[in-house]
């Protein structure tokens, strides 16, 4: 039954074979990720249109133009969106995780149900909130008018002063469930013995939270917050469908600005320059994340 080992049986060492197995993915990835990334960064040095062939080398001209014009407001919008869009869902997700980590009846079911806003497609999140924020028939205006908090319906997404907050609320709604699940998984690894010991020493709920729960969750909190920051920093779907970056650029983040510059303004050079600056900032965040994750893995 068992054939004798032949000379051909190991023409390849395990190492070589192991490496060869990755080739299909590497070739595919080179073609659709690494080449496009480098290609897009290269356009930052050229005057190039999306719809016309040919391009002209302009050195750092695009960077100068972008830094004089769009970059700073876009950076500020991205920071506001990323900052508030991380803090708000984190607080909600953490509070919910703590609440669901008790002996609340039906908590397994609730945990599943709370995932809904995060599970549904990003455009559906935007549709639901577009409708809620609608100036004429929206639910939010309806409730606020009935409660007497506002006299007239407000155009939440049409006003530069409120649009960003409206977008952040929608994004918060879609983000908090993921944070809740991750932190709940972390909470379930906190040894109950620690809590009991602290409780017997007379530590109240708040002190036990501060001295037992929080230190135990440090690693997972860091991972969750950093990943959420990285994702928000490049988020596109919710913003684009809700406001398209408007009104008057009030919600234009890097993702929207690069997209619009390339595919509505057809200016690939400026889009590339803006994208390159965006990528540098993103890489800083990724490095922070990787360092943190490696340190957590070791400890």
């Amino acid at each position: 039954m068992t054939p004798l080992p032949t000379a051909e049986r190991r023409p390849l060492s395990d190492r070589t074979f192991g490496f060869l197995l990755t080739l299909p993915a590497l070739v595919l990835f080179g073609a659709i990720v690494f080449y496009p990334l480098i290609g897009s960064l290269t356009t930052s040095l050229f005057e190039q249109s999306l719809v016309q062939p040919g391009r002209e080398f302009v050195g750092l001209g695009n960077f100068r133009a972008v830094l004089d014009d769009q970059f700073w407001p876009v950076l500020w919008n991205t920071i506001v969106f990323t900052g508030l869009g991380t803090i708000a869902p984190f607080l909600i997700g953490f509070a919910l995780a703590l609440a669901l980590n008790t002996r609340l009846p039906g908590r397994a079911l609730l945990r599943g149900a709370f995932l809904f806003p995060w599970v549904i497609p990003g455009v559906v999140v935007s549709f639901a909130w577009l409708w809620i924020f609608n100036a004429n028939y929206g639910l939010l205006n309806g409730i606020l008018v009935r409660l007497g908090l506002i006299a007239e319906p407000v155009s939440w997404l049409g006003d530069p002063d409120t649009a960003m907050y409206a977008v952040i609320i929608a994004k918060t709604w879609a983000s908090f469930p993921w944070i809740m699940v991750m932190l709940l998984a972390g909470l379930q690894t906190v040894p109950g013995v620690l809590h009991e010991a602290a409780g017997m020493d007379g530590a109240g709920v708040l002190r036990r939270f501060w001295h037992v729960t929080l230190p135990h969750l440090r690693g997972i909190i860091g991972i969750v917050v950093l990943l959420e920051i990285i994702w928000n920093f490049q988020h596109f779907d919710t913003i684009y469908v809700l406001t398209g970056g408007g009104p008057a650029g009030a919600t234009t983040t890097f993702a929207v600005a690069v997209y619009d510059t390339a595919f509505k303004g057809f200016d690939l050079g400026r889009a590339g320059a803006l994208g390159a600056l965006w990528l540098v900032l993103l890489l800083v965040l990724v490095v922070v994340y990787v360092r943190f994750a490696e340190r957590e893995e070791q400890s």
Partner: protein
Amino acid sequence: MTATVHAPTQTATTPAAVPPPRRRRPGNLGAAATVAVIGVFAFGPVYWLLVTAFTPNDDVFRFPPRLWPEHFTLEHFANLADNAVLGRYLVNSLIVSSLTAVLTVLVSAYTAYSFSKFRYRGRRSLMSLILASQMFPQALLLITLYLVFSAYGLLNSYLALILSFTTFTLPLCVWMLKGFFDTIPNELLEAAKVDGAGQGSVIHRILLPVSLPGLVATGLFAFIRGWNDFIFALTLAGPAKQTLPPGLVNTYLGEFQAAWPDLMAASLVVSLPVVIGFAVLQRYLVAGLTSGAVKG
């Protein structure tokens, strides 16, 4: 997301046998109140989406809106069924997401096997490279992808969508499958080699059949990610090949007056496969979450 992300997986997949700490009654009341308040925020929009989808136009377009529905209708779903364009978007979504899942699982299975069971120089760097690539912003990749697909006449093709979707499904699937393969004992594969099986038959006769549940789960995650994509399908395909998310945006928004109830009904329809998929995937959820199964 990167090679180092499995720190949370470890903590997450080892739920302690210890029951949650006993709380006194005030604690439980606080928990219930927290769940109730966040529940209003979480389920209010879902409720409103459902109510709008089943309410006649006359009741929907009035201000202030009625919080409790009075009349019930299925006309908005009938409108969807009558709209041939939406049917085409649906078929496109099914085709593109399915083929993306198949291609991704095929390619990533070999890579994940390599990462899981072989040791060679550069392995860790390759892993980091593939997994970190999820962090590259899509809008930036899109510039060159558009030019390349345009140069090869691939704009408006399923292939362009499938290839562009692979940029985000492949890292995810490599990562998830590596996790599955890690749980398959080396002895099983070694035993087959001792019995004379070549490297290829070890993969195709032993590894893949044994990992079938993992392959299906991973494929389903890839399908969901493809189904949810917006930016690539919006840009690389026109109406003939577009998928549901950009298709719905183009159909219902940008009009002078949006048909909100129809859009809410369509939202329910486009969400359904994803919700079912996640219900099926419950047990793989935490592994999927930490590998960035659905990007936030």
